[in-house]
């Protein structure tokens, strides 16, 4: 009797939940699911001539292949460098108790800077390392031309430098909880059993940190792969995937190219979706140790 009552109670509660979810589901359907399905659908049937994978193939050939290669190289480079620097920053901050103000300042600053992609950031770097930039001039007076190192806001390494501005703080933010999950007692326990610090890191520290670090870098990868505003302001004609999609879909070229745009979008969605699944898996691995 009691269990039955409990059951019907749960049932009606779930029904209330579903009612409240209706506007949300409609909204998501109209503005997210339907557009996405429409795009993937047209990518899979180019020219409305039935199912075909030709479009998807075309999207990975010629200059579009180059776009994917450029975007992937940029995203991977900034994820790797930003990941290592962000992790180092987190490790340093964890080992420093004083000054206290540095911790709160850096926490807040990272939350701000990790969101600072976009127009103002691009402007700031043009003012710093552009042809008329302050740093360009400063190094020039020392006899160093930073353009020799490929560092101008429109070059590959210049973009890397600009992206690192939001990638390093982002990595710092995501790796801090994982580093805090490494408990002092584990280190002491390892030492008591005669493990050297190296052995402790190889056997305990790194295996526990690895999912968090990899997950963080994956987040960084996605973050810079999809970044649009910064790249657009710095180099609108650049051969990066988001800019190429814009070019194809904004009617700048002869019609019929839209299918190609849809196909590139489909690849990007597939890539980001795969990253999201991998990220969720890595986060679950991470949570095992950070939940206390």
């Amino acid at each position, binding site marked *: 009797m009691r269990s039955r009552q409990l059951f019907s109670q749960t049932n009606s509660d*779930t029904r*209330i939940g579903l009612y*409240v979810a209706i506007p949300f589901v409609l909204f998501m359907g109209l503005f997210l699911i339907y557009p996405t399905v*429409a795009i993937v659908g047209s990518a899979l049937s180019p020219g409305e001539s039935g199912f075909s994978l030709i479009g998807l193939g075309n999207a990975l050939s010629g200059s579009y292949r180059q776009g994917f290669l450029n975007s992937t190289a940029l995203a991977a480079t900034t994820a790797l460098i930003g990941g290592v620097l962000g992790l180092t920053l987190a490790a340093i901050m964890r080992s420093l108790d004083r000054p206290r103000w540095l911790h709160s300042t850096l926490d807040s600053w990272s939350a701000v800077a990790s*969101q600072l992609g976009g127009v103002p950031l691009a402007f700031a770097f043009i003012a710093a390392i552009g042809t008329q930039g302050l740093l360009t001039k400063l190094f020039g007076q020392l006899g160093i031309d930073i353009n020799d190192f490929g560092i101008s806001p429109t070059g590959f390494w210049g973009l890397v430098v600009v992206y690192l501005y939001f990638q390093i703080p982002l990595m710092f933010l995501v790796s801090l909880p994982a580093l805090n999950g490494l408990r002092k007692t584990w280190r002491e326990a390892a030492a008591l059993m005669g493990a050297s610090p190296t052995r402790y890191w190889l056997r305990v520290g790194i295996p526990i940190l690895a999912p968090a670090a990899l997950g963080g870098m994956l987040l960084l990868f996605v973050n810079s792969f999809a970044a649009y505003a910064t790249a657009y302001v710095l180099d609108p004609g650049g051969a990066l995937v988001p800019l190429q999609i814009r070019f194809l879909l904004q009617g700048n070229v002869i019609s019929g190219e839209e299918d190609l745009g849809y196909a590139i*979008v489909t690849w990007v*969605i597939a890539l980001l979706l795969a990253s999201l699944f991998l990220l969720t898996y890595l986060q679950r691995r991470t949570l095992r140790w950070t939940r206390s």
Partner: protein
Amino acid sequence: MTKVFKWGFLIVLALFFVVPLLAMARFAFQSVPVALLTGETWLKGWSIDPIIAASTEPAMWTAARTSALLAVFTIILTLVLLLPLAIVTEIKAPRMRPWLTALTLLPWVVPPIALVVGVSVTFRTGAPWFLASVFSLVPFYALWAMPFTYRALDAGLQAISARTLYEAARSTGASFPTIILRVILPNMKASIVAAAALTTALVLGEFAFASLLLKETLPTFMVNFQQSQARAGLALALIILIFTALAIGIVVRTLRRRGLNVQTTGL
């Protein structure tokens, strides 16, 4: 790690973060061209005229007003869509929670350009007036901010143990609306403020959607304005940067004071 390495690393990183901003400020507020900067001239030519030039530009105020309205409407839409859902899910239908967590992450997967194209294909035939209005950006922004806003609200519910509060209030005889209005919502103030401030920061800085839909918001105005008036454009960018930083700073402080741990990361 030695102390020298640690502090060296921190100082280099601090320079990396501060110098571009200083360079931008110098470019905006000092009229001396970089080529003429020397020991004698670096104190000359500073003025706040660019701010005045930017703030007397009527188009700037139109764009700013648009961005502010967009932020307000996006916050309203976000709260209407997510707040009741998050509350009911937490106290009545916890089985929906994993679904909601996954669904609210999805906007993260579809790049802005794809959403814009998909939605405009959908609406062009049925409701062309929709894309003509500047407020067609609102649903995009609500969608785009959702991974953050939902997490902020959800973290608030988790932190106050909403289900326990709900059961305690019900066992003392409170009706459902009373519980929501007088128990749950007052306790969620911090996370609602956080969600709103996050939305504001995102809307103030958002460029991709506005540029693709050819709408004049503050960021898209800024890009055009900077091309005609370089220094005033940079001054404006700096001011917006500071506003955004303040908005996010409010989020971080409010949440930390409540001991909430919200992912403000990603995107």
